[in-house]
């Protein structure tokens, strides 16, 4: 966890990629996230998150099909690496631990 810096937005994008599986390309990720977050996202923000995570080794990618809607340009389908799955699991673990610690800790804090 120490060396892997995964930003909050990056984490969201990464999870979306995992969720979308074979459909995980730029615009689809954008649509999915926009729906879930209920806010507008720009192509630039999604793309820069994807590229950054690809450089850090969380994602791999390969060209997919080309559609007319895309002006004959191919999609790039992203997939999470095992390393990414591991990191996501670690993060979840840490967060869960924290959540579990809350009710036990807070009353005592009050007494101090």
């Amino acid at each position, binding site marked *: 966890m120490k060396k892997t810096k995964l930003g909050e937005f990056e984490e969201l994008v990464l999870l979306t990629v995992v969720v979308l599986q074979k459909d995980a390309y*730029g615009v689809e990720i*954008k649509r999915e996230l926009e729906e879930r977050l209920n806010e507008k996202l720009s192509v630039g923000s999604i793309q820069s998150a994807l590229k950054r995570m690809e450089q850090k080794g969380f994602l791999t990618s390969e060209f997919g099909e080309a*559609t007319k809607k*895309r002006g004959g340009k191919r999609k790039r389908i992203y997939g999470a690496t095992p390393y990414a799955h591991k990191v996501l699991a670690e993060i979840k673990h840490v967060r869960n631990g924290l959540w579990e610690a809350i009710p036990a800790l807070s009353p005592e804090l009050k007494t101090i």
Partner: protein
Amino acid sequence: MGSYSGIKSRTKNYMNKKEHITPPKWPLRFLRFFVKKDYLEEIEGDMEEVFQDSLTIHSVKKARRLYVWETVKLLRPIILKELEGASRLNSYGIFKNYLKTSVRSIKRNALFSSINVVGLAISMSVGILMILFLFEIYSFDDFHEQKDRIYRVTSHSGDATSNLAAASPYIAYRLQNEVPGVDKVLILYRNLSADLKTEKEAIAVKGYYASLSFFDVFSFKLKKGNPHTALVNPGAIVLTESTAKKLFGDSDPLGKTITVDNNKNFSSGIITGVMEDPPINSHLDFEALVSFKTVEDKQKNWAVSPVKEPEFFGAAYVYLVLREDAKVEEIELMMTEMLSDYNSRKDRPAMLRQFLTHRLQPMDTFVASPDSYRIPPGPVFLQRKIHMMIGLTFIVILSACFNYTNLSLARALRRSKEISVRKVIGANRFQVFFQFMMEAVLLSLIALILSIGMYLLIKPEFLNLLTYQRFELDVDAYEIMFFLLFAFVVGGIAGFLPALFLSRLKASVRLNDAGKIRLLFGASIRQILIVFQFALSISLIMCAVMVYKQYDFVLHYNLGYETGNIVNVNIKGHGNYGDLLENEYKKIPEVIATSRSTVALGTGKMRGAFVLSEDRADTTGFWSNLIDANYLDMHGIELLAGSGFITPAKKGESRNKVIVNRELLKKLNLGSPEEAIGKTIWFHTSHGGGDRLLIQGVVGDFIGISLNVRPYSEESSKAFMFRQKDPDWDAILGVKIKSTDVLATMNKLEEAYKKIDPVHPFEAKFYDDQIADLYKEQKTTYTIISFLAFLAISISTLGLLGMAVFTTESRMKEISIRKVLGAGIRSLSLLLSKGFLLMMCIAGLIAIPVAIYTVDEMLLSNFLYRADIGVMDVLSGFVIVLLIGILTIGWQIGKAVVQNPADLLRDE
């Protein structure tokens, strides 16, 4: 609303039929430019898809707008393209490489480089001179805080030659009182000249009678005294610092009373202020100011008062400070309105009955003026002439640039290997272009250093040529910046064509002849450039020859009187002053004759008036001179009939007997000279009436004013009248000398002068020199043009030499083979030189009409009497250039032709 949506849906259908609405082009192009190559396809696709999606919910317009916005938001570091190839390197390295290659190439071709550098330096030195000159001209009067609001009232009556930089005090007062747009009015009454005397010192000063707003209008600094009150009272005098120093030394002059001599308006004054000397960039220059009230009080009660009548529009300079919102045209109209009474008056003489108008001239055109004005207070450089000089300088510089262009194009073959290697390694067109531009700029920077040196050499010569002597033309740091910019521009112009051409070469293409980019009628750029250079040289030489011929013509023109060996001494006093001086001069043995008059004929200055015949049926303007009894004799003017003045006029005696010339008789229909003797004519005075004049003698025609000043009207230019001079007032003492040692005689004249008049400086000049001074402008034009012609021909000869060396070198093998096959020297010379001769002839055909037109329309257009131009004058430029060209080419051809062909061909 319904119909609108209908249209909208139809558009949509139409769009659907077309199947694809594309995103706007230019953001896409931009996107392609900045997105990393590896990401481009994906991102372009994403963008397109998002665009198509947004089309389903938004209008086409909005979708496009969103697309643009999305594109902008793509500008993130991780997506941006990184620099590639050479541009990823520190560009310093490539600069160093270009510099090294340039230096090597310059060194390797020492001959061609020095031809280029010398040519550029010659032309750039003139460019530098021009830059400094323009700087100085356009910085005139910059120190006046209200410069953009200061105007001068000018006067116009009749054609453009009557434009006057002056106006009447009358109009000044009316402007002040009646026009709301006029903030301040200043009257500078002309021709203040007086001798100021303290107990110890006496000096003569020149300046103006200034109204009290002087220091409110101008930003001259008053060092001592109160700027608001200094010029209020009559007799108040403001001195410049240097004049105050001369008169009072280090003591404080403020409030001191001084005696004033030699002035009709006042005899004593009080010093009310000391101001800084006018800076050299002031169009006004003066030594003292006297309050305008001094003149006004003296002259306002005259029957015809210059300070009250609109017809004295030559009396004063009137300056205005306008309000910000004032409209110049409206004020001009109001002035015309103010003059309507005067303009409709019937008692003015016929020839003066021209419509008088006043106009306003803004301060920034006082020196660099679009029109010429008579009696300007300071230096004037006509914009037309300034533009002509800029044009000529530019053409000469262009000519030097063409040398570089030509030689580089010709030698392109030699550089093609280098360019090929660069291109194979991966240089693109722009990089090669840049390299060659840099080479040209480097050369022009070297030339700049040389040209500054040359400039320092020609500067004193140029300053001598100017009639206005207060120019400095010094170089300071700020101007050096401009020179550098100038060198870059020159280098850019010179290097552009070769750089363009060389950068276009493809690595694989083998060149045949680099210079043959076909342009017009199959002539190559090189030939056009050479023809241009020679046409320039030929026409400049022709202009110089024709102007010189005219200058020589006017100097030796038979004016109708003798001027040789006569020294004209200015008389600076009145009363018996003239008699004393004349008597003193008569004692000098070298002096053989003396005579006094008010003007010297033929030196451009003259008094004019109008005269009517006895029955008042005919009228003519005429020029007059007031002379003494010796005048006609001393100047060799012969009487055709009647007699000259025999005895000097006595004080108070009527001087109504006159001597006229034949032209005046003709104008007034007075018949032959003999018939005219004893007839009466009327001298016109401005308010009716007139003096009766009796014709006592008749002389032949002569040139009264000069050969180049066009008089107010051409018909009146030759009519002339001599009257007897007033015994108390003279202006000029003519002294005819006979001496082998002219300098010693002049010294004697000066010594004698000092005895009579210790106050005024001795001002004397040979009559012939005075006349020559009149044509100084033509002499200046001639000197400048012949200098430019010399430069142009040096530059084009250098270029020709370069081309000749190049052609003969590259055709050496051809020449050798021709020789082996039996070609003679004659046929070889013809072969090598016929292209050049053809270009020369074309240049001549272009240059001759251009030069004749320029001389006629621009250089000598103000001359009434013109020298005839012969065939030799027309051909002069052509012949000179042809000779120099043949010598240059012949030298190279000679070297090539006498070479033993075996030496060259043996190695094959």
